[in-house]
Every structure is written in structure tokens, then in C-alpha cells.
């Protein structure tokens, strides 16, 4: 099969609705198809990858650790919007340390999180061929 640029756009907080969890399930499946996959975290979507999520108080499964597996599946482009973080009083320090290993650079561990401005995010979005929104 040919390779396409897929983007998964995440705009909603986790746990309040199912979209974050079921979006992550699609992303993991997409890894099997050898496509050029990117994730966008904008607006409340940035809460999906915050550090230290603890769901014991609400009776739901904490699925945030699954984001850490993305790098192992060669999904290493997680675009996070600076403006969305700032509006919510968050910085990159509040996000999980998501990494991948670069095969072409002696398996050096690199961050999967790409902080971008809204304008840069728009440019990334404009390059996509298939955009799935949740």
C-alpha cells in the first residue's frame, strides 16, 4: 500500500469523554499500516498527555501510559500547541516525557513532543492527506 500523511487531531480532555482513549486506540492500530503518522494536541487536547495522571478517584482506567508506547511503534511526531498550553497555565514540564529512538542516529533517544505555535500547527495541518478528528 502507498504511504499517506495521517494526522490525528486531539482537542478534548481525557476521561470526561471517551474520545481521547478511542483516538489513542486508532493511533496504535495505524502503526501497523506503515503510514506517515502525526498527532496534534490543541485546545483541551493537551490534557491528554499531562504527567502524573491518577484516575483512582474516578473509577476509570488510566490509559496515559499507553502514549509512552507510541515511540516504540515509530509514532514520534506529537505536535503540541504552545498557545493551548499557555492558556491553561501549563508548560512542557507538565507533559509526559514521550520519546523515540532514532535508528539513523545510533538509536539515540529523542523527544517525540514538538512544541509549535498556532501558526506552525496550521502549517503542519495544511500538509496532511487524511485528518481524523476526535
Amino acid at each position: 500500500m502507498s504511504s499517506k500523511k495521517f494526522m490525528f487531531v486531539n482537542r478534548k480532555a481525557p476521561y470526561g469523554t471517551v474520545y481521547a482513549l478511542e483516538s489513542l486506540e486508532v493511533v496504535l492500530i495505524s502503526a501497523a499500516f506503515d503510514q506517515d503518522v502525526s498527532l496534534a494536541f490543541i485546545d483541551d487536547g493537551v490534557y491528554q498527555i499531562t504527567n502524573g495522571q491518577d484516575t483512582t478517584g474516578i473509577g476509570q482506567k488510566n490509559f496515559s501510559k499507553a502514549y509512552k508506547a507510541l515511540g516504540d511503534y515509530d509514532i514520534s511526531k506529537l505536535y503540541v500547541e504552545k498557545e493551548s498550553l499557555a492558556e491553561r497555565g501549563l508548560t512542557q514540564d507538565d507533559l509526559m516525557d514521550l520519546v523515540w529512538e532514532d535508528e539513523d542516529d545510533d538509536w539515540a533517544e529523542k523527544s517525540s513532543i514538538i512544541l509549535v505555535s498556532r501558526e506552525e500547527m496550521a502549517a503542519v495541518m495544511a500538509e496532511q492527506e487524511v485528518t481524523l478528528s476526535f
Partner: protein
Amino acid sequence: MKYTVMINEGPYQHQSSDTALQFVRAALEKGHEIFRVFFYHDGVNNGTRLSVPPADDRLLQKEWSELGIKHGLDLVICIAAAQRRGLMDESEAKRQGLDADNIIEGFRISGLGQLIEGGIQSDRTIVFGD
């Protein structure tokens, strides 16, 4: 104190069913009475017995069912909302000429008047939804 609880969303899609479940449990633990739990809109989907989520996920429909049976709760599914969305008990399925039903034990199907009556009879009416 006597409560009626209204739930407007189905399980999983929105947290409201989870929150309502925790709220009802906490109210019962404090000795309050749950006069009725009324499932409206997509909330009726909390009453299906055909759900089989992944083993590591909660099974909300069963948790409601078991809590209801244990405490003798009146778990009411709105009939009009249920008909639109395909939630059926045995007698309603028969009446509609359908070949299957899907309601879980502990729930019953009834009319919207049950919600208003709940509001009248209870000290507090709490709405959970989207």
C-alpha cells in the same frame, strides 16, 4: 434525604454515567435514600446487557445493574428515548414485533412522568449529562 438522579448520556462516551454511579454509591453510604434513577436521552444505553468491554475496563451497565439489585434501586429507562435508540425489554420487544431484547436485570422501562414524579417526591433532584 431523598434523591432522584437523572442521567442523560450513555456509558463510556461521556463521564456522566461514571460520575452518577459514584455519586449514588456515596449517597447510599451516607444513608440517604435514592428514590429513583431516571435514564433519559442516550442515558438509556446504560441499561443494555450486551456490553462486553475489555477485561481491564469497567463494565458500567453491570455496575448499575448490581448496585440497583443490591440496594433495591428503582432504575427507570425512559420508554420514548429507549424506543428511538433500540433498548427493549421482553414485553416491549414482543409488543413491537421484535425478535430480541437487550435490557439488563434491575432496570425497568417506563414513561417520562416517572421523572417528574421523582422531582416532586424527592428532596433533591440531580442531573448528570453532557
